[in-house]
């Protein structure tokens, strides 16, 4: 502790700088004691006795001192708080007065901010719902998806591998396996197709949420014979069973098999986009457990507490090596990947949303720099006011605080206004977003919105304020006072700052413009894709032929024949076909082909998409046969097995000879069936943006028995009509019900729907980027206009002098235009550089165009230049119309 000289002069010196509560109390009590001693002495006591008595009366001096100091300090703190609050109130009032003084600028600023923050908030709502919002399960941060990989691409998991994983892993608390399944739910209302999953009972120990009613599966229910129990999703529970918990314990009929309802899962147990409506136990048989070359399971895992994703990955790689030692043939090129469940759910959308969020951030930046420009301009006219404040003794910090308060007040108003923009924009986003984005249905203006808006507002306020505030408090006060508000010349550093801002704005606008142009061109590329068939006038509906009447392949085939006959009797129908795989509609399984007379290395056997179709398929879809013949009505059960392949497969296997007459077997037939190639069809795209894959078309009457299991006895009917009308879907339903009213229909589409769905992701990005670019362009135009208009109004005298000295109006016009043009050119150059670097993030979202496509940059740059010149036009005209006589005299 520092020894303090006990002399009052020193203390007084200290007290000059700040109040020293402790020293004050010392002095006060010392005076008291002195006074007491004096009075006691006066009454006749000896000095020593007087001192003793005085000390006795006052008691514990140091305790008293502490009490008094504590009281004083609490008072000081409160006073400081009050002073601070008072000052803040004054600052806010001053700020409001300043803002009210220039209502137009203020209104434009608030609107700009509202748009900037609102756009960001809307995107944030989506990002939050899809990427950030916690999953509802217990310990969601420990949940992962474990997938097998083959040559780095993800595949399903084999039941053999899963069994070994469970036995050998050290990283997981639990592992669960499941596979999608569909059932015909009958007995309650009209026959209905429900999707669900067959799951190991451990699923409910991995993704943990307590059931709403009943229980989940017991381990022994995953054994053949005991597996006829079902857990309902909350959605199915409320819609089909009226939300009556007495359903637990009752029996329902799934694909004509009785199942006992044992429980009901909570509402958000399955993400909406998965659409799982019920779960039944997955009974892995002893035979399953030795299968290492069929990969059809989806595996979830819950990490043990404290085990990292990387550690789990290493553990599973070790397990995979152990399996490979046991099953070398099945494990060629195979490995394993552990992915966080959230990352897995978000999938490809993470990148896309990241890009959109980045674009929205650019908008906010643009909005801020635009307003900063306005504030700077206003500050120029306020230089005197600020100089006066300095002269009257305000410290630099005080003035900075005042200006910061102004910008924060402005930002706060913008933030409040942005809430309206955000809720509108969020609804708009939900309407145009692709339907396949997971968890998007839960996006709304929710609890997470407000903190984001507040944070964005604060950041905007600080960004807006700090730059002008620091600028305006620099410089010579006296000079500012002497200048008496006269316009400063063009080389003023403040103008340089505004010019920099405008260049930055144009650069940002260009970045967004290039993005928009890239997406527009990508959309045009998508629109011009030839899918390989004629999409106009096609309607499709999927039918499930499940139940006791459709047990054998022959029964299914005859069902399909009857359906085709019934549907083709419709008056609108020009052609009708059945297929197990609908291009642009659903996925198709691939099978290994064993070509007669040819050997392939393990892992390099040819594979092809497998479709079983009616012979009318090629004609109905408008797929040309380029070689040989199409399938025909003679290719039926008992006739020689035939197959049509597509050009991709023909080219891959027989690049230099005709494939016609070649034979292969495939499809895990129990008895080898050699199929002869009778025709080659044109390539068809199953996914709009993916290259056509090798395909084989087998007539449905000759389809291998196993294949109906792959499609769970479903088939898609396609009908070509002259024109599609509103009644067709209903007539289609009636025609199918006429064959068998118990058949559930689903996935009823027109090809327009499918096309729209295939391009929805790109359309979403395009719409947003176009909106952003338009916003950015407007902001940049306002920015450049503001700078020039300001410039002209402050250089009227100079312009007048020039004109008096003989400059023509044309020269003046060009002079101003050139200034604007220089700014625009600088911004366009800078923006091009930024766009070249940053547009790489768009690569995977674009189709058929490189992110650095030069034409795009030319288009965007040209458009921006045109807008910039237009924005310069008005100020340039005003400059050119200056009357030298009036301007100089005034």
């Amino acid at each position: 502790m520092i020894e303090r000289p006990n002399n009052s002069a020193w203390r007084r010196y200290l007290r000059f700088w700040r109040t020293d509560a402790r020293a004050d109390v010392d002095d006060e009590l010392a005076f008291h004691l002195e006074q007491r001693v004096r009075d006691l002495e006066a009454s006749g006591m000896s000095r020593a006795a007087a001192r003793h008595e005085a000390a006795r009366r006052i008691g514990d001096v140091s305790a008293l001192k502490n009490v008094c100091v504590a009281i004083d300090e609490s008072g000081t703190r409160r006073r400081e708080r009050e002073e601070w609050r008072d000052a803040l109130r004054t600052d806010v009032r001053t700020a409001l007065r300043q803002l009210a003084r220039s209502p137009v600028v203020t209104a434009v600023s608030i609107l700009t901010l509202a748009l900037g923050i609102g756009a960001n908030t809307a995107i944030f709502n989506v990002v939050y719902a899809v990427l950030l919002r916690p999953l509802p399960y217990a310990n969601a941060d420990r949940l992962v998806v474990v997938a097998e990989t083959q040559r780095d691409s993800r595949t399903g998991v084999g039941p053999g591998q899963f069994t070994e994983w469970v036995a050998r892993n050290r990283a997981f608390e639990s592992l669960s396996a499941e596979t999608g399944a569909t059932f015909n739910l009958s007995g309650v209302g009209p026959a209905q197709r429900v999707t669900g999953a067959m799951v190991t009972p451990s699923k409910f120990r991995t993704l943990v949420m307590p059931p709403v009613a009943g229980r989940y599966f017991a381990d022994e229910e995953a054994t053949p014979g005991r597996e006829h129990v079902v857990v309902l999703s909350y959605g199915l529970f409320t819609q089909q069973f009226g939300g009556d918990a007495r359903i637990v314990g009752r029996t329902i009929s799934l694909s004509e098999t009785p199942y006992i309802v044992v429980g009901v899962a909570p509402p958000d147990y399955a993400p909406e986009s998965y659409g799982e409506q019920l779960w039944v136990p997955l009974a892995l048989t002893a035979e399953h457990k030795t299968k290492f070359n069929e990969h059809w399971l989806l595996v979830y895992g819950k990490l043990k507490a404290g085990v990292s994703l990387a550690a789990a990955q290493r553990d599973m790689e070790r397990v995979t090596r152990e399996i490979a030692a046991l099953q070398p043939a099945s494990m060629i090129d195979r490995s394993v990947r552990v992915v966080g469940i959230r990352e897995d759910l978000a999938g490809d959308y993470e990148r896309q949303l990241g890009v959109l969020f980045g674009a929205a951030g650019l908008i906010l930046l643009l909005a801020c720099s635009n307003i900063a420009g306005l504030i700077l301009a206003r500050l120029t006219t306020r230089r005197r006011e600020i100089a006066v404040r300095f002269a009257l003794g305000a410290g630099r910090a005080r003035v900075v605080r005042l200006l910061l308060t102004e910008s924060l007040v402005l930002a706060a108003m913008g933030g409040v206004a942005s809430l309206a923009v955000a809720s509108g924009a969020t609804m708009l986003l939900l309407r145009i977003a692709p339907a396949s984005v997971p968890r998007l249905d839960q996006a709304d203006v929710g609890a997470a919105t407000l903190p984001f808006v507040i944070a964005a507002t604060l950041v905007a306020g600080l960004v807006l304020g700090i730059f002008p505030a620091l600028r305006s408090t620099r410089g010579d006060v006296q000079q500012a006072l002497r200048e008496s508000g006269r316009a400063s010349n063009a080389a003023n550093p403040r103008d340089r700052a505004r010019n920099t801002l405008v260049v930055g704005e144009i650069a940002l606008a260009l970045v967004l413009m290039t993005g928009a142009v890239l997406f527009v061109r990508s959309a045009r590329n998508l629109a011009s894709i030839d899918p390989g068939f004629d999409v106009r006038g096609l309607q499709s509906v999927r039918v499930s032929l499940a139940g006791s009447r459709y047990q054998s392949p022959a029964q299914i085939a005859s069902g399909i024949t009857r359906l085709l006959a019934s549907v083709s009797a419709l008056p609108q129908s020009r052609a009708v076909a059945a297929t197990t795989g609908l291009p642009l509609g659903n996925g198709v399984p691939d099978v290994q082909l064993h070509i007669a007379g040819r050997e392939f290395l393990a892992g390099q056997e040819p594979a092809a998409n497998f479709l079983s179709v009616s012979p009318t398929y090629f004609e109905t879809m408008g797929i040309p046969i380029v070689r040989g013949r199409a399938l025909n009505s003679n290719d039926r059960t008992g006739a020689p097995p035939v197959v049509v392949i597509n050009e991709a497969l023909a080219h891959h296997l027989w690049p230099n000879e005709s494939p016609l007459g070649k034979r292969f077997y495939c499809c895990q037939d129990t008895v080898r069936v050699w199929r002869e190639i009778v025709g080659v069809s044109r390539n068809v795209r199953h996914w709009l943006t993916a290259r056509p894959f090798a395909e084989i078309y087998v007539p449905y009457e000759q389809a291998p028995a196993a294949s109906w299991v792959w499609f769970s006895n479903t088939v898609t009917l396609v009908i070509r009509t002259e024109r599609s009308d509103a009644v067709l879907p209903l007539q289609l339903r009636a025609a199918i019900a006429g064959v068998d009213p118990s058949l559930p229909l689903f996935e009823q589409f027109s090809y327009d729907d499918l096309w729209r769905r295939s391009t929805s992701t790109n359309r979403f990005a395009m719409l947003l980027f176009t909106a952003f670019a338009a916003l950015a362009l407007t902001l940049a135009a306002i920015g450049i206009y503001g700078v020039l208009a300001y410039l002209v109004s402050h250089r009227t005298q100079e312009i007048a002098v020039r004109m008096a000295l003989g400059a023509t109006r044309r020269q003046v016009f060009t002079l101003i235009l050139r200034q604007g043009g220089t700014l625009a050119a600088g911004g366009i150059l800078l923006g091009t550089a930024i766009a070249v670097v940053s547009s790489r993030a768009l690569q995977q979202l674009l189709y058929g165009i490189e992110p650095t496509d030069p034409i795009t940059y030319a288009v965007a740059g040209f458009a921006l230049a045109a807008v910039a010149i237009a924005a310069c036009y008005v100020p340039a005209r005003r400059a050119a119309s200056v009357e030298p006589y009036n301007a100089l005299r005034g």
Partner: protein
Amino acid sequence: MRVDLPQGTLETMVLKTLSWGPMHGYGIGNWIERTSNTALTVEEGSLYPALHRLETRGWLESEWRTTENNRRAKYYRLTSEGRKQFRAQSKSWSHLVASVALVLEATEP
């Protein structure tokens, strides 16, 4: 006779003392003792905390002045808020005393 002071009474008496004019802590204590004919003893341990409390509350202001003996002392002075508070408190005190007296000096049941 020595009397124990009820809670808050000391503060009211301090305000009363200062209504005559600025005074330091020692003087305030002295004046109360003298005026009460030494029936009341003002403990330093109560007086100074009361003064500091009143000051932080804004009812008193203080300033360092020189006494007639040329010593520096901390003088307290009523603020207008303090004056208002004193008026209110002395009124309610008188009312209390009168009411208690009415009860205690009652002559019939």
